[in-house]
């Protein structure tokens, strides 16, 4: 069953039901399917291409374009609207994508990127093009491609197949009980595995998906819960923690009909879990552990009788996780490896990254351990990646950018604890002799050259950076 079959199934069963709501716009499953087919036909000018890049904020148009590209037998390369020029250049080069579909605003932005030579198409123009041709499309084993930060500065392309999507979606539905009677609120970006998994689930079970653009607009999230009679909400831990700043009575009222809040494995404060367990009278908070490369590998439902608030739960059905350590003991801290049909077979055009996959086991780069009842606890990353609110950042990328600023001799970037984001980025900077550069100038440079989640939250000017005799930074000594 491929992703388009999910939609076809829902058209057969609930054709006239509203599939997606975006502000005042609504589209039924039947209309969505028609628009998807039309979009695929209108892609005829790109018939020879295997990969098409798509950049858009959450919208019905995005979903039509996403499914339309897949329906035409091509692979969608999903890109965040916040992407920097250098990252876009790297991704296009690695993916070999020569065409970008995006909205007018993004088109204006990308047109100013001198290094980008791809052809840019306006999503609305493709949507509204009149084309009577009926084209027969090939099927493709793969559905989409997302780039995620690697242990080096080069982003890694993660290619997701239809069979992985089917496996993961069925696990989500089975464990979290999604059904066609749900109305799901999604304030998360659809260019990320978390948001996409929610979209796939809604298409599969035939529930209505309410899309929001901005997860920070807490009032809009809370109002939407009531307005659309929401039954499930997907939100990152930072959003949930901030919601707790509202009056308790008000929160309990807003969440009175919610049966499920799903969050992800970015460190969720224990206090937030405990408070939501109290708030949700008719439902549960749940989390999962996964990577783009191995989506939803565990699930944890924080029910009232389970006091493992810091666990990411048990393995998903038919997913195996092992802990590799000297003791050969899953109960002791070690490297986390995952195996299952949700795990990628290989990275996209990246021989180096493929070394992390051996005999179908993916080395995640995370460390953790199981308790005696099979609940997994995460400990951190075995490499140097900084996890800012679920976004993975490599220190090397930040350091290379900062080193381009005149007046800086050396710099090291590393993660520091943050109550809301889990981690944020700190820089220790050594100024050149006689340099009068200040922190605000460094930040301004970062704003122009890095995505916003990569902007440091703290900068210190230091006299030296601790290094080994081989010049490698002693990261454990940084503070």
């Amino acid at each position, binding site marked *: 069953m491929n992703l388009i079959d999910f939609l076809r199934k829902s058209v057969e069963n609930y054709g006239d039901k509203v599939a997606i709501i975006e502000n005042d716009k609504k589209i039924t499953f039947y209309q969505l399917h028609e628009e998807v087919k039309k979009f695929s036909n209108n892609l005829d000018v790109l018939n020879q291409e295997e990969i098409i890049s798509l950049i858009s904020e959450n919208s019905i148009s995005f979903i039509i374009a996403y499914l339309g590209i897949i329906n035409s037998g091509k692979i969608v390369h999903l890109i965040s609207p916040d992407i920097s020029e250098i990252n876009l250049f790297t991704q296009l080069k690695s993916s070999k994508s020569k065409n970008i579909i995006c909205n007018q605003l993004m088109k204006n932005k990308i047109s100013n990127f001198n290094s980008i030579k791809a052809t840019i198409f306006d999503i609305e123009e493709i949507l509204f093009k009149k084309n009577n041709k009926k084209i027969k499309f090939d099927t493709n084993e793969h559905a989409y491609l997302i780039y995620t930060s690697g242990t080096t500065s080069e982003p890694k392309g993660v290619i997701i197949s239809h069979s992985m999507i089917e496996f993961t979606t069925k696990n989500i539905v089975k464990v979290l009980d999604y059904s066609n009677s749900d109305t799901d609120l999604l304030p998360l970006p659809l260019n990320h595995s978390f948001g996409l998994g929610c979209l796939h689930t809604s298409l599969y079970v035939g529930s209505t998906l309410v899309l929001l653009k901005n997860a920070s607009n807490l009032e*809009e999230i809370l109002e939407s819960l009531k307005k659309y009679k929401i039954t499930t909400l997907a939100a990152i831990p930072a959003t949930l923690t901030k919601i707790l700043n509202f009056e308790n009575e008000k929160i309990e009222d807003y969440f009175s009909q919610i049966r499920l809040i799903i969050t992800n494995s970015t460190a969720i404060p224990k206090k937030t879990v405990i408070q939501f367990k109290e708030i949700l009278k008719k439902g549960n908070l749940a989390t999962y552990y996964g990577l783009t490369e191995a989506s939803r590998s565990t699930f944890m439902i924080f029910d009232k009788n389970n006091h493992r608030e810091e666990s990411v739960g048990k393995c998903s059905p038919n997913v195996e996780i092992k802990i590799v350590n000297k003791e050969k003991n899953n109960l002791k801290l070690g490297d986390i490896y995952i195996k299952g049909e949700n795990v990628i077979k290989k990275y996209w055009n990246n021989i180096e990254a493929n070394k992390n996959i051996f005999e179908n086991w993916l080395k995640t780069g995370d460390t953790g351990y199981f308790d005696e009842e099979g609940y997994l606890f995460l400990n951190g990353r075995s490499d140097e990646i900084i996890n800012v609110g679920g976004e993975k950042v490599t220190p090397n990328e930040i350091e290379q950018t900062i080193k381009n600023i005149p007046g800086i001799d050396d710099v090291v970037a590393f993660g520091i604890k943050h109550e809301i984001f889990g981690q944020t980025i700190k820089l220790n900077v050594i100024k050149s002799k006689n340099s009068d550069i200040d922190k605000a100038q460094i930040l301004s440079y970062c*704003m122009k050259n890095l995505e916003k989640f990569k902007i440091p939250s703290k900068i210190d000017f230091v006299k030296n950076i601790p290094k080994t005799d081989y010049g490698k930074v002693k990261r454990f000594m940084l503070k």
Partner: protein
Amino acid sequence: MTNEDESKEIIKNIFFEVFSNLDKNDFSWEKEQKDYENWDSFAQLNLITFAEAKFNISLTLEESIEIKSANDLLKTVERHLA
């Protein structure tokens, strides 16, 4: 230019740096977070970081969460500078 005028100018510039698509005519001291399309939690962090660097102050988590407009940021900064 008074100190308050200077602070206002700096904060206004911070907003234009963080929201690079913000048109000069669209800036308003009262405009709230929910009315900005790109004011997500990362942009919030960037605003606070810029203000801390420009004014050499340090905001608490509670203060940071409460900021929902340019005016809120101005008031918080002024409180620290007083």
